[in-house]
């Protein structure tokens, strides 16, 4: 509660103050919400830093030393792994940002873009690992694509000895990541685009003799970038530190740093845990440096913009290459996702499928029935984890956002930027950098292997995404609806439940579905915190992916994809059904 530096501030005369007393429970919420995801991160970081500096009593190391760091920087694979990580991580982030912009410039607003918008939620709900597996089925030298080419041309009676997937430079990793991250950036952009007045800005620029491209490059994109900067930072951090996708689609000798660190954590030589801890800490530093550099690039770009604005207007007003490229990119993206889903589904129904057949020689439901035998326990564990973590996250996020509304009406300035940074923190810190340490903490408190601890670890990642998806629409809600409801109903409860909640029902359900999907995709937290006592569809799927049976791998991947898809479908259908007679709610 800030005291305004004004002449008159009778506490009791301040209406906001009066409101505050009634909702004092709200004031505790930001602290609670922050604690939910910051405590594990902080404890986990400390628990990782200690071994990184050689303190690891469990294996008799009880003196601080720099040895792990020396060994890390002297690791034979370090230098090359570093280069590959930077190349693939930064490359994928920049590529997805560029694709996002090209799609917007070339297609927004248009009918095609609306179609693309509808594709977004199913695409976003595809778990990373499942998508990477499917893409591998599609692109490898004996994959579906080559089989089709062979079928039509007869060029490849045996698979070509080409490097099309898991190439040493990480190009296939870049493509996989970019395909998965572009929809996320697009989604985040869509939330802010309405406030940018795209059409009016373009019109205005055109009327001043500037091209539409100019309007986008120098007027709209700079504003848009400011709005999606944090999501973009999350993409950078994710691309630099991802483990599961890099395992499936990344280079092998050496792999990226995150994979190398995971290997060190899993090395039979236990002292290598400390080297892994040093590496994980280094990865965190690396991510920070990368983000700092990207941040520092802004002022020069801003100067460039000033220069561009001072330049003489060009006369050509049409876009030439962006529109067709946007169309091609959309098609490519749709094909990649549809293709990987299709080939995964076909594999799940296969008994025998040899190269160069484009379809299995024998179909069978055997893979499904084999998995059905043992899916029961992981299935319900997955569903409960996802449901509960999404519900708790939704509850906390709504309370935090309501608290924000309250603060907005009692404080001059509400630093939403700072809140956003806090929320993004778990997404900016590499998972490998704190999960190990968090596990040690849980064991110390006797909390490991408990369902509640597992739920907590999922919440750390579910909460930020629920906040991200909901905060935009929630903050854009026209407060006047709520005041009106208050003046009409004279009670807060009904005003919220009958007016604000239903109007926001669509984004709320969407945020819930997002949280659900995020929980389902969690692999490392379940492994680290679940202590092996809980298995989810995703841990089963990754266990299958370590095996050789593609058919079972495919069945698990289909399971993994269908759950979030189902929830997203419900999240779309329920409001559509509820408001089927309300045009403006569609």
């Amino acid at each position, binding site marked *: 509660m800030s005291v305004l530096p004004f002449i008159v501030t009778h506490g009791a005369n301040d209406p906001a103050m009066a409101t505050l007393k009634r909702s004092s429970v709200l004031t505790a919420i930001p602290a609670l919400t922050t604690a939910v995801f910051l405590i594990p991160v902080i404890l986990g970081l400390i628990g990782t830093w200690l071994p990184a500096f050689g303190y690891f009593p469990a294996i008799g190391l009880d003196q601080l030393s720099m040895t792990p760091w020396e060994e890390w920087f002297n690791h034979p694979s370090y230098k090359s792994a570093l280069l590959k990580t930077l190349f693939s991580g930064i490359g994928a982030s920049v590529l997805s940002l560029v694709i996002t912009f090209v799609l917007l410039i070339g297609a927004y607003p248009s009918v095609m873009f609306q179609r693309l918008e509808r594709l977004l939620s199913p695409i976003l709900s595809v778990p990373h690992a499942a998508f990477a597996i499917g893409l591998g089925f599609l692109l490898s030298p004996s994959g579906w694509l080559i089989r089709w080419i062979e079928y039509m041309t007869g060029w490849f009676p045996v698979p070509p000895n080409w490097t099309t997937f898991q190439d040493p430079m990480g190009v296939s990793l870049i493509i996989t990541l970019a395909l998965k991250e572009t929809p996320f950036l697009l989604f985040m952009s869509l939330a802010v685009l309405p406030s940018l007045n795209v059409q009016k800005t373009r019109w205005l620029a055109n009327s001043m003799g500037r091209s539409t491209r100019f309007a986008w490059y120098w007027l709209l994109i700079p504003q848009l970038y400011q709005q999606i900067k944090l999501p973009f930072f999350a993409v950078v951090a994710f691309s630099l530190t991802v483990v599961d996708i890099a395992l499936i689609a990344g280079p092998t000798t050496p792999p990226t740093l995150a994979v190398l660190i995971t290997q060190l954590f899993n090395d039979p030589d*236990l002292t290598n845990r400390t080297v892994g801890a040093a590496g994980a800490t280094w990865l965190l530093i690396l991510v920070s440096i990368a983000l700092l550099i990207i941040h520092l690039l802004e002022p020069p770009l801003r100067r460039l913009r000033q220069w561009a604005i001072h330049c003489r207007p060009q006369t050509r007003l049409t876009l030439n290459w962006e529109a067709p490229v946007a169309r091609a990119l959309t098609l490519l993206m749709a094909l990649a996702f549809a293709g990987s889903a299709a080939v995964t589904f076909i594999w799940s129904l296969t008994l025998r499928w040899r190269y160069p057949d484009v379809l299995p020689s024998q179909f069978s439901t055997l893979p499904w029935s084999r998995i059905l035998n043992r899916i029961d326990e992981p299935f319900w564990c997955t569903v409960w984890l996802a449901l509960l973590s999404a519900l708790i996250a939704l509850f906390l996020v709504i309370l935090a956002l309501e608290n924000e509304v309250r603060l907005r009406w009692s404080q001059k300035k509400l630093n939403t930027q700072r809140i956003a940074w806090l929320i993004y923190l778990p997404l900016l810190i590499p998972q490998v950098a704190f999960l190990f340490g968090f596990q040690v903490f849980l064991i110390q408190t006797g909390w490991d292997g408990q369902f509640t601890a597992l739920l907590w670890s999922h919440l750390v990642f579910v909460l930020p995404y629920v906040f991200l998806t909901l905060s935009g629409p929630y903050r854009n809600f026209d407060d006047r609806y709520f005041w009106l409801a208050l003046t009409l109903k004279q009670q807060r409860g009904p005003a919220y439940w009958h007016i604000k909640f239903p109007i926001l029902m669509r984004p709320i359900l969407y945020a819930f579905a997002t949280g659900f999907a995020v929980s389902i995709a969690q692999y490392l937290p379940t492994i680290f915190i679940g202590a092996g006592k809980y298995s989810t569809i995703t841990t089963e799927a990754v266990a299958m992916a370590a095996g050789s049976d593609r058919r079972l791998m495919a069945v698990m991947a289909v399971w993994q994809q269908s759950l979030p898809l189902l929830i997203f479908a419900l999240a779309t259908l329920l409001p559509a059904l509820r408001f089927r007679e309300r045009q403006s709610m569609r």
Partner: protein
Amino acid sequence: MIKTLYPHILALSLATVATTSQAADWSTIVNQAKGQTVYFHAWGGDEHINDYIQWATDRVDEDYGVTVKHVKNVAPNAVNQILSEKTAGKDQDGAVDLMWVNGENFANMKANGLLYGAFTQDLPNYQLVDIDNKPTTLFDFTVPVDNLEAPWGMAQLVFQHNTEYVQQPPQSAQELLTFAQENPGRFTYPAPPAFHGTTFVKQVLLELTADIDILYAPVSLANFEEVTQPLWDYLDELHPLMWQKGNVFTDGAPKMKQLLNDSEIYLSLSFNPFDASNAIANGDLPDTVRTHIHRSGTIANTHFVAIPYNSGSAEGAMVFANFLMSPEAQARKANPEIWGDPTVLAMNKLTAQQKALFDALPNGAATLPPEDLANVLLEPHASWVEAIEKAWLTRYSQ
């Protein structure tokens, strides 16, 4: 039959057998085990193995009232768990009660005191283990087992070739190189430190080294550069002829099997002699795949189950480990239609009835006859593993 390169290994093994204790304790253990829940951490990447473990857990539940939960977790993750518990001072009732382990993981757990202690001498079925002819049941990567882990199955490096493309499979490392020259891009091996990759490199080293005894002493005693130079020369020549020109490696045997199935490669390797027959039976490999080994013999070892130091259900874990060593369970495991993992038991220690279980097993078309498989090489001293892996990474992974 077995190349007894190190006479003192056998001498040590006799000493271990002498510590075997009386069976009187066993009934106490069985009583204490009743009602316990055992978390068995074992790799879950193969549904046949998962099915087999499921069967075994059902049986001990029926026979002994012990609940076993199969946690599909690789050994390093389980070690991480135990390590975190030790870091946190949780020395009782840890999350892992029994784990599938061997080699380096075992050596490191032993060195860091993460194991329960000697227990196999108390298990009745341990008496049936073929410790005389299977020295790797007593020396895991040359590290003395000291009754800290119970033998579960035998493994041997074998090669698999697709007869559709390969008529004369290579019988030595040199012939393998010739094969690669004639069929560029059709062979690969997993990148060390993946288990199968390291084993392949060790196999080549054993084949190319003239004075093989040096490999059975600690690496510090040898001139590493000199001894391994032929190996690196060989790999330098082989890699450009491999799948993806040696720029990309697989991460393990399962991926190798997929590549063989897809005809991306014609020649693969496995650690299970029955693997090919098994895979053909369930459609993972074409029926044109056959198994072969090298003339010099191939590296063999044993895989085990071990109890961590902080298990809260050690008795239950012992009962399960004992059941896994029973003739019934071992014969079922050796069936290529079920799993096809060679037994650790000695046929001459079994009753006629028990032996009949093994005699009745089908052999599978792609499996080598036992006399061919008998050609076995022992693992080099454990210290070589790290040195070789590091040198490999320095050369080929940067």
